[in-house]
């Protein structure tokens, strides 16, 4: 069973990484138009090195995605606590209201934001951009953390409280550690949502300010070059290294999955 499971996981990884490997390979292919056969070249990495616009866009994207992930995870987790652990009138309605931001295509939500922010005086700029990114990431966080809540028994918290712990203390010492996998997963998704978000940045950023997805989407009319593959590869390998180093040095022993 164990070996079958591992074999299956490798198959899934092959599927998930097929386009990623193609993307990486094309960053090293000489052809501007991604033509085969493959001929090795580092010209796109050299070009990327001097492409300050693209590098700055990549940096901006990471900054925004990081702030978005932190804010959306904090807000979404709070809401998830209330939605999962409290009973009150109108709860189902509040839960249902998380669906429109996911269901309505970003293009429409983005256009609606542009109009509404203009009319209401919120305007364009960094603040508007963040308002939009965080809002679109929140439903993903609430759903993922909510799933985590389903697997944790509420009676553990009650037990803590009956032993004299305050609800807040019980939450932080009992529930939160158990929720860590889901919260972290939610943060990773919030980061991904922001990193892929193009319409909102495009509509709401001040002219001259640009993010990587904006660069990618607005350059496809004329053609995006393998430099895009190069920077995507750098970003992916960079984040992979950071996460793996982080996981490596995370203190072993505090295994929150042991109940």
């Amino acid at each position, binding site marked *: 069973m164990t070996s079958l499971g591992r074999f299956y996981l490798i198959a899934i990884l092959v599927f998930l990484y097929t386009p990623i490997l193609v993307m990486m390979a094309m960053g090293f292919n000489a052809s501007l138009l991604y033509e085969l056969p493959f001929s090795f070249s580092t010209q796109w990495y050299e070009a990327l090195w001097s492409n300050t616009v693209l590098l700055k866009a990549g940096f901006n994207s990471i900054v925004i995605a990081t702030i978005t992930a932190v804010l959306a995870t904090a807000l979404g987790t709070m809401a998830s606590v209330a939605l999962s652990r409290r009973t009150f009138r109108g709860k189902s309605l509040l839960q249902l209201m998380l669906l429109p931001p996911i269901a309505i295509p970003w293009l429409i939500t983005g256009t609606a934001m542009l109009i509404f922010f203009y009319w209401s005086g919120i305007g364009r700029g960094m603040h508007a951009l963040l308002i939009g990114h965080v809002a679109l990431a929140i439903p993903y966080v609430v759903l993922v953390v909510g799933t985590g809540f389903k697997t944790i028994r509420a009676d553990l918290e009650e037990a803590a409280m009956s032993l004299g712990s305050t609800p807040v203390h019980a939450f932080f010492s009992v529930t939160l550690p158990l929720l860590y996998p889901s919260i972290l997963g939610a943060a990773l998704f919030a980061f991904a949502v922001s990193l892929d978000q193009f319409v909102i940045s495009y509509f709401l950023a001040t002219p001259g300010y640009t993010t990587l997805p904006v660069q990618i989407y607005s350059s496809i009319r004329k053609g995006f070059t393998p430099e895009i593959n190069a920077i995507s590869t750098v970003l992916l390998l960079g984040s992979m290294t950071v996460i793996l180093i982080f996981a490596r040095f995370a203190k072993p022993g505090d*295994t929150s999955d042991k109940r």
Partner: protein
Amino acid sequence: MTEITRRNTLKLMTTALLLAGVGFSSLPGKAFAAGTITVLNWQGYGTDEAWSLKAFTEKTGIEVVHDYYSSESEMLTKLRTNPGTYDLVVLNAARCAQAVAEDLLQPIDFTKVPNAKTVDDNLLSNPNFSKDGKGYAVPWVWGMTSLAIREGMPVPDSYAALADPAYKGRVAMDDDAIINVGVGALMSGQDINDPKDLAAVTAALKSIKPNVKLLWSTEDQWNKSFAAKEFDLSLFWSGGSVRSKRNSKLPVTFVVPKEGGIGWVDGLGIPVSAPNAEGALAFANWMIDPAFYVEWATKVGAPASSNSAALEALPADDLSRQVHKPEYLKTMGIVSGIPDDRREAFNNVWQEVKAFYAE
């Protein structure tokens, strides 16, 4: 993942916030000094070439900032919702009429655009660019959407080739309602801007179905699919064909069949609320300057300049010059501003045809 502790996560989040703070402080402030203009255009379309901006800034002291749009309706929305932001906007003749009707543009003071003296009269007098005898945009470049065929294949002489069984599964169409209705109109012998018999247009477009392999919506997609030999015959842009052939060495021939090309003109307009109209006029003049145009056309690949002096300054064997013959300006139909209900009807025709292709 489950072993990542709370303390470590908090550390990571703190680091992230600090990083974010650094990122914020390095953001450029809203710098709209007197010496700056903000241009609204498609990305990579002439106005944002680094070498040209450098020369322009050296010459005039004006810095150029860009904001981009990815569809023309988005351009209009940005104009409406950002008063006081843009100084110059690139807009198609068809959309210009609409923008003028909505008082989004101010009249052009042509005395401040000396290069406009040699702009082709056909373009200067285009009704889409003017209202009550005043010009609202400097005509900038023009081009055509017409047929492109892989080199070595017989050159078609009519749009009817799109439906020719010889090209079964080898045709790519431009995913644009106005252009396709135009093609359907030409195939059924009608005016591209006002086809009376939309049913005939629909039928003509539907007859292409067995040949249609894909619908492209960006030049990038066209280039990559053509390079991968996914189609042989397509609708394509004149300027795009020049870039594909010269920069990407793709074996493509641009053909204007007997029905004529579908012409378009892009102009440079100045929004009513432009903070720096003077600077915008100087930049518009630069954009139709022969020196700039020759470099743009030969280095990058461009549509035809509206300025006949600029077009004539190109080397005689230049591909742009061969593709954009000045006589087309008199023969081709130019996509013009049309009433809303007609545009809606055009869009419905194209949606219906696309749904039919997908069946």
